[in-house]
């Protein structure tokens, strides 16, 4: 396999980003930018999938590529998840931005560059590439949140995320510096080896590790580092929210897993620092708080924001299990993130399709009786929330099943029990979506949100719905691929 094919997804992101910028600047009539962008991202994802199926990168990659970035199946698996999320978000944007009069080409450019950053992040095997990837990804997202420039909420969300994100980045950078000071290495493998050999300066490593974990926990919006999430998610245009909640989160988790398992995966570090216990605590907080806070929300967008916080908690359960049993748990994390990506994209997509020009569906009340008036528009939402709830036979069920299975096999039965109880709480607010759509009628004087008619959004819903059902009915193939990727990650 050619080395070019391996790095083609990254190059494709960059080239198409520049291309869209030029087209947007010179094209008089609005070209179908959403179509071009989503196809470009989908092609990048497909190439990664092909590389993944073919068994990964060739052995003779030039050193300039392998020094900072990995090309292992793990990275390619995340490429697939990131590209799937980004491509679906762009399709949603194609309908949403036009419908709400926000059609400006820079949105697609931001997605492409941010997606590039996310893919770098998923491949990062060095603290330097980690930071570069993280910032590339985040800068695009900051701008995306503020995309609706006239809205105070959007600007507030963007400011909040930008300030807190900068703090988190600074903490992460400081932690990286301490890790470097403690071990003399910036690459994960080198750090891991230094720690294993006992030559590292342990106190520096511990403090550095703590700061890196905090920085990453911020990016995946684990409680108590989640404060920015609801505001940013609510303020952003819904396609941007979709992108943030799936692709950005997946990439952040990719590097989180890599840092934990490769740099800090040594037995001595685990016992000395107890990071698995710390992450288990974060996971419990995140699952419980995310689900409980989601119940009281009036806005569905905020509810989905808290739900995505809760889902970060489930993924961290898998990460804790990975400390004990390794590859099977990592594969559960991989599968969960893929399932979560398609399910969440489906849920946000359904929210997008519910509103059209003049009236965007945001609150539960906006959805009253939609199921009776427009059953075909409501159906994707039902599948989406059932999958997020973890209901068989959808993707979300198998994701939850694999993660909790990993926790039980790792001996963390209590963590699995907290997880299932938290997801039972989650069932309440997901059901509420179905309740308002099918079991309630709008009030007399209420302005009704009319579902939008858009080929882009319909395509996105069909694709993500099909993926949710496919992953739920036939999870075996993807799970095998995930297991293989997880094994190669651990060497």
């Amino acid at each position: 396999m050619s080395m070019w094919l391996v790095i083609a997804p990254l190059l494709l992101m960059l080239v198409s980003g520049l291309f869209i910028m030029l087209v947007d600047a010179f094209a008089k009539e609005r070209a179908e930018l959403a179509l071009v962008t989503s196809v470009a991202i989908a092609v990048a994802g497909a190439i990664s999938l092909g590389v993944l199926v073919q068994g990964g990168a060739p052995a003779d990659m030039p050193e300039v590529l392998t020094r900072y970035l990995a090309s292992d199946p793990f990275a390619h698996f995340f490429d697939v998840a990131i590209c799937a999320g980004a491509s679906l978000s762009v399709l949603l944007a194609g309908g949403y931005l036009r419908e709400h009069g926000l059609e400006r080409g820079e949105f697609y450019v931001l997605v492409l560059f941010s997606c590039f950053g996310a893919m770098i992040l998923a491949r990062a095997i060095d603290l330097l590439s980690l930071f570069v990837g993280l910032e590339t990804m985040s800068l695009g997202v900051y701008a995306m949140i503020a995309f609706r420039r006239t809205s105070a909420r959007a600007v507030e969300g963007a400011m909040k995320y930008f300030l807190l994100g900068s703090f988190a980045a600074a903490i992460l950078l400081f932690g990286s510096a301490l890790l470097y000071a403690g071990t003399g290495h910036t690459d994960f493998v080198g750090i891991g080896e230094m720690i294993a050999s006992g030559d590292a300066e342990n106190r520096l490593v511990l403090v550095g590790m703590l700061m890196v974990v905090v920085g990453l926990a911020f990016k995946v919006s684990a409680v108590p580092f989640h404060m920015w999430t609801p505001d940013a998610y609510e303020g952003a245009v819904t396609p941007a929210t979709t992108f943030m909640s799936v692709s950005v989160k997946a990439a952040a988790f990719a590097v989180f897993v890599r840092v934990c398992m490769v740099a800090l995966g040594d037995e001595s570090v685990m016992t000395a620092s107890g990071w698995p216990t710390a992450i288990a605590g974060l996971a419990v907080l995140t699952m419980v708080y995310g689900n409980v806070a989601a119940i009281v929300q009036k806005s569905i967008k905020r509810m989905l924001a808290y739900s995505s916080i809760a889902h970060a908690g489930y993924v961290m359960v898998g990460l804790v299990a990975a400390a004990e049993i390794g590859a099977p748990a990592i594969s559960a994390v991989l599968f969960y993130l893929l399932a979560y990506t398609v399910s969440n994209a489906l849920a946000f997509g359904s929210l997008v399709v519910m509103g059209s020009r003049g009236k965007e569906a945001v609150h539960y009340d906006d959805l009253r009786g939609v199921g009776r008036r427009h059953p075909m528009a409501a159906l994707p939402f039902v599948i989406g929330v059932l999958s997020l709830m973890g209901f068989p036979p959808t993707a979300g069920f198998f994701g939850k099943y694999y993660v909790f299975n990993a926790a039980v096999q790792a001996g963390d039965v209590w963590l699995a029990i907290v997880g299932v109880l938290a997801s039972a709480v989650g069932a309440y607010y997901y059901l509420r979506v179905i309740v308002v759509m099918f079991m309630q009628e709008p009030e007399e004087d209420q302005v009704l949100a009319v579902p939008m008619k858009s080929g882009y959004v319909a395509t996105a819903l069909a694709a993500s719905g099909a993926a949710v059902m496919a992953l739920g009915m036939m999870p075996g193939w993807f799970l095998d691929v995930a297991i293989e990727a997880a094994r190669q990650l651990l060497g």
Partner: protein
Amino acid sequence: MSAWLSENLLTALLVVPMLGAIGVLFMPRQWPNAIRRFSVAMLTVNFGLSLLLLPDFVELVQYVLGRLPGVEDLTLADYSQQGYLFVVDEPWIESVGISYKLGVDGISLWLVLLTTLLTPIALFASWTSVKTKVKEYALAFLLLEVGMLGAFFALDLFLFYVFWELMLVPMYLIVGVWGGPNRVYAAVKFFLYTMVGSLLMLVAILYLVGSYEELTGFYTFDLVALHDVILPFDAQVLLFLAFAVAFAIKVPMFPFHTWLPDAHVQAPTGGSVILAAVMLKLGTYGLLRFAMPMFPLASQFLGPTIAVLGVIGIVYGAYCAWVQKDVKKLVAYSSVSHMGFIALGMFAMTPQGINGAIIQMVNHGVSTGALFILVGVIYERRHTRDIDEFGGLAKVMPWYAVLFIIVAMSSIGLPGTNGFIGEFMIMNGAFASSFIEGPFDIVGLGRWGVVHTLVAATGVILAALYMLHAVLKMFWGPVSKKENEGLRDMTWREWAAVAPLILFIFWIGVHPTTFLDASAPAVDNFISDFRTKFAESRDDSLRLWHPDRHTAPVEEGEEVEAEPAEAAAEAEAPSDGQREAANVLPPSERTLALAAPSHPAPSLNATGENR
């Protein structure tokens, strides 16, 4: 053709309502009557198909249609043998040992037939009462039947869980969309109660499968294989609790019963019928099929406590029923009372008790189903269910009164009706439980069985009180309300819905042997297996019961002899790294060296295969 049918009968029973659902999906919603006819027809066809599970019926078919090609080689199911019949076993998700494995035996047989009988009746009974969104309503019933039958058939714990959850959604929608004024609250409560229980059960299933993997080095969710895992006492208690809570919520057993009156009262008639007649049975069936045989030590340790809860439920449910003003709520609370009997019978651990419990499951389904249909009949005419609103109905609607009183009598347990048989057998079994002889005298309710029986017997008296109280107020006396004059008596549709149930009320009441013949051998196996496994479990260790039956999966195409499980376990067990390797075995053919289901195996008494 017919051999093929026998092999795939259970799959066919799931596919027919599924096809019906797909068919309904493509029918225009402007044709409500066509949708109703089509879906009732599909469900009735499925009932006819399910009759092929009965050897007597197959013989009848062969006698009548003997000339037709293929009819001769239809399988005559023999429920007196051990193991499951009509087994289907196909791999589904091989890398984690999940398979599509179905089967029936004497325990599930009547519950399956109850399901296939009552689903069309329930849908038929709401022919006129459900006028809106008929298409979705029919769809929900068809999918509901798939979920319920699948849960009764599943012999793979994972598959069981999937079906168990699957039937939740249609029921949730039936209550929430077509229910009464407070339907959303009731539907959400129903959903959440069941969900909490079943999620805990999922964790328990995962733990059990993990233990199996620890012992053999590979994963499986096969019930028959997992049955051979003998767990230490503490683990048994915790896992049993997780299973039992999930099932007790469904039953519902006191004190988990609070969702039931809400759901029943708010649900439309058809929903109440299915909920009471079939879905509650899944709780008791689950206890009998999964929780008790897999964790005998814990089952024996906690069983008497659960039986006490059952007895409390009997009396408490009866008292609550007595004070209800709403007829539907009265029937709902009477369900709590009747389901208490079933729990008592199961944990008595005597053949009479368990047979009685099985027959009582059917009885409750038939009688309560009929009661809900009859309550629906009067509600449709008067739009109230308040007992005080009626009076003297026997003069206005004589046939209605006759039917109602027959069903009420069967619910009370009058001799000659089905209720008598079930409750008598259960109390007989519970009483006998005090006097079990032999080496396993600790199995059962112990000396307290007599006390349990005495208290439970008061439940029968209370049943007579609340039922006769309701009958008295509704049917006798003068016609006190103007609205009640000139009410229409039973229509032919209502007759058609209730008549089969009346038939079964008397059939079971007069000739219960028809039904007990199939369940008795299965119950005998169940008890002897329970006792043997109980004795095996007493050393309080984690081990495999029949180690030679569990061989590691062999990769397809490789000509490697299947290693004995123990050797594989030894090789895999020591390090975590190697355990991971076992975990990630590539897709492979699962070659559990278990006896074929139809294996006669007379010498295998009390082995993992029986029950």
